[in-house]
């Protein structure tokens, strides 16, 4: 449930960033997850695959970087690092 809402928020965020043309396709998305954010890369990728259908990120590869420091201020967060697009 948490992942689902996270991913749908993420996709919307991506849409708002890449929306204006000439972007034709999103080919890759990189996120970074903190050690306290209570999710894992496989889980996230599954949800991404599901939620991506019919959106601008359908078919894009989700790369997940992990972060180890629990004292990092973003330790409990997921950060959208970058979006790879094709024009």
């Amino acid at each position, binding site marked *: *449930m*948490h*992942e689902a809402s*996270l991913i749908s928020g993420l996709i919307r965020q991506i849409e708002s960033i890449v929306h204006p043309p000439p972007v034709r396709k999103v080919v890759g998305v990189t996120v970074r997850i903190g050690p*306290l*954010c*209570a*999710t894992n890369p496989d889980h996230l990728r599954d949800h991404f695959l599901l939620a991506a259908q019919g959106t601008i990120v359908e078919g894009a590869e989700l790369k997940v970087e992990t972060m180890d420091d*629990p*004292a990092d201020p973003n*330790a*409990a*967060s997921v950060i959208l690092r970058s979006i790879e697009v094709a024009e």
Partner: protein
Amino acid sequence: MKLKARVIGIGNDYQSDDAAGRIVARRLKTWAPPGTEIFEETGEGTALLEAWRGAEDVFLIDAVQSGAPPGTLHRIDVQVQPLPASLFRHSTHAFGIAEAVELARVLHQLPSRLIIYGIEGERFDAGVGLSPSVEKAVAEVEARLRQEIGTRSSHA
């Protein structure tokens, strides 16, 4: 002699798994060794500041919703790490446990030891009774607290 230990169970009995913390507290009531106090709280933050006042070792138990599988246990030593606010996403109060801990840190009102057990809940809608995975986790926290508090007493 060791100063007082206090167990504070947090939650709402009528919001399904949210009751987990209070159920742990209630079960410990019949067991608690001398010098251990057991409280129940709703999770309203400023009331928590009062609830742990004067205690040395405080164990707080609450249901959490961070996205981990239901029944997952989180143990946080507040002196060692900041409390991830996202863990308590389901807190029924805008000024809840995470806010209380961080406010206490700023006002220098944290107990010298504050351990938080978070039990990942599954359902938080209005209802009575725990999910099976949470029921199991409740038993596990109860056992762990008996040990943690027991060990502490034997060193007294």
